[in-house]
């Protein structure tokens, strides 16, 4: 039986939902608006839309620092680390989902527990390792570290997806003469494709936004967009508008990607929760 909801209650809830949505989105909106202000207007009294619009911050930022280099670094680091992590995580999650042992659960929890450690706790050993192996400020170094950082989340997400695939279908493939490789390539992966796609998207976004390791392990050559933004935060001088322009340019690609794939993302995040 459908519950009867009065118009007033519905309006109330709608207004509340919009208010929360706007509150969450407001900092991003403010950043985008500030990026179109002059530096003077940016630190002046707050104005929502009634200010003199300018694109000078964007031209300025682009002439001062190589946006495209940072952009490419971000793309390579985010995509590279996600793809390598997927290549490791697919067989791992397959094994845990379809041949579980008594220790599988413990292993999964142990993997997740590594995400509970504050990264700064291992910064010095990793920094020294990177320095001694020449990986500091290299794309490959960041790809390695972000692969390992996001691996537990990727394994967990894929594990949840794979568990939803009926084991009988894989057994049927085995009976049909498929070996392990054929089973994973022809049956498991295509069936798990929606799950793999949302895992990929989410992890590209996580890796794109990752700021701790990218800021600490890079200087110039391998610095992604996070470092590009950080270079505009300064204790002195007028940098608000330029900082906002840099931020807008850094989040734009991932914002567009997220907008187009929101259906996949929501499905990925709520998978298993609702059937």
């Amino acid at each position: 039986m459908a519950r009867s909801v009065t118009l007033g209650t519905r309006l109330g809830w709608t207004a509340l939902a919009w208010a929360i949505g706007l509150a969450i989105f407001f900092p991003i909106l403010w950043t985008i608006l500030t990026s179109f202000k002059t530096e003077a207007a940016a630190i002046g009294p707050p104005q929502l839309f009634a200010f003199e619009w300018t694109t000078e911050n964007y031209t300025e930022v682009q002439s001062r620092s190589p946006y495209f280099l940072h952009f490419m670094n971000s793309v390579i680091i985010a995509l590279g680390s996600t793809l390598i992590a997927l290549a490791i995580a697919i067989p791992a999650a397959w094994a845990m989902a379809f041949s579980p042992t008594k220790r599988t659960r413990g292993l999964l929890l142990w993997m997740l527990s590594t995400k509970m450690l504050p990264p700064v706790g291992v910064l010095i050993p990793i920094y020294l390792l990177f320095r001694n192996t020449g990986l500091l400020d290299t794309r490959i170094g960041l790809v390695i570290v972000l692969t390992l950082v996001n691996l537990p989340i990727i394994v967990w997400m894929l594990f949840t997806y794979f568990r939803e695939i009926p084991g009988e279908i894989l057994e049927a493939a085995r009976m049909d003469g498929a070996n392990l490789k054929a089973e994973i390539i022809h049956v498991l992966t295509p069936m798990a494709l929606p799950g793999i796609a949302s895992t990929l998207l989410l992890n590209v976004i996580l890796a794109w936004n990752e700021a701790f390791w990218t800021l600490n392990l890079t200087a110039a050559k391998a610095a992604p967009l996070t470092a590009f933004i950080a270079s505009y935060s300064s204790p002195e001088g007028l940098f608000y508008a330029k900082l906002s322009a840099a931020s807008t340019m850094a989040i734009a690609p991932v914002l567009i990607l997220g907008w187009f794939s929101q259906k996949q993302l929501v499905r990925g995040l709520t998978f298993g929760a609702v059937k």
Partner: protein
Amino acid sequence: MGSITLKNVAKRFDEVEVIPPLDLQINDGEFVVFVGPSGCGKSTLLRLIAGLEDVSGGTISLDGKDVTALPPSKRGLAMVFQSYALYPHMTVRKNIAFPLKMAGLEQSEIDKKVDGAARVLNLGDYIERRPGQLSGGQRQRVAIGRAIVREPSAFLFDEPLSNLDAALRGTMRLEIAELHQTLATTMIYVTHDQVEAMTMADRIVVLNRGVIEQVGSPLELYREPKSLFVAGFIGSPTMNMVTGSEAEKFGANTVGVRPEHLKLSTEGGQWNGTVGVSEHLGSDTFLHIDVEGVGLMTARADGEFPAHHGDRIGLTPDPERLHRFDGAGAAMR
């Protein structure tokens, strides 16, 4: 060729012995049904033969060759699953072609075989559809098609009809039986439905708690059940079991009489009772009779048999068709 020999095959899951060591010989071209209540180990036994489970002991041979250590993909057997287990991302054509593709056949040969199987199974109209767009019966046909194209040495069926409605189950049962006639390939069929077992099998293997109770043709099991368990499992409606002093009169611990082997009379008989519910099926009437000193018994009578609730009736067992069992449940001859 497809003879299957099990020698001392056993299966344990951790400490639980699901199947104690057993021997079984399945001849080439035979239709063998494993039947038993749920949890009796019949599906496990089938999966051991398929290679989907590892044996805990013993050997499995196909045509005299030991395959115990071979993975399922190398045993040359085909299996039809209860859930059909079709590949949801592939069309019917690709589903059926999959085992051939895995076997590395030429595309032209694959097409020829898939078209042939589709024709035999009347799948031509939906060959380009995906499993999600098919009905239960059509999906089951695709699963069978996928099994027959690779020309396996034996087919394994794991309760393939239990997800279908009663009418379709009847039709598919005939189709599978007919397929067996056409292909003359060994088939092992697992079911908990004794009607399926009786109608399809050359030989039935009755399993109870992982132990083979009896192996024999459907009529052998019907006529001469070796144990109380088989007697109670085979036949519909089930055999009437009489215990206590009434059974002792026949020199047994338990006496079994099938509903169709009871002679009914209004003038009294070996046992007397009152008619409770009578089920009129048209061709037959099943009478549920509360018998004095025995309890509830079922008798099968002619479709036109005039019986009403509360009628007094006498029952006399056919002495030739009486089954006697000792205290351990074994048949006494």
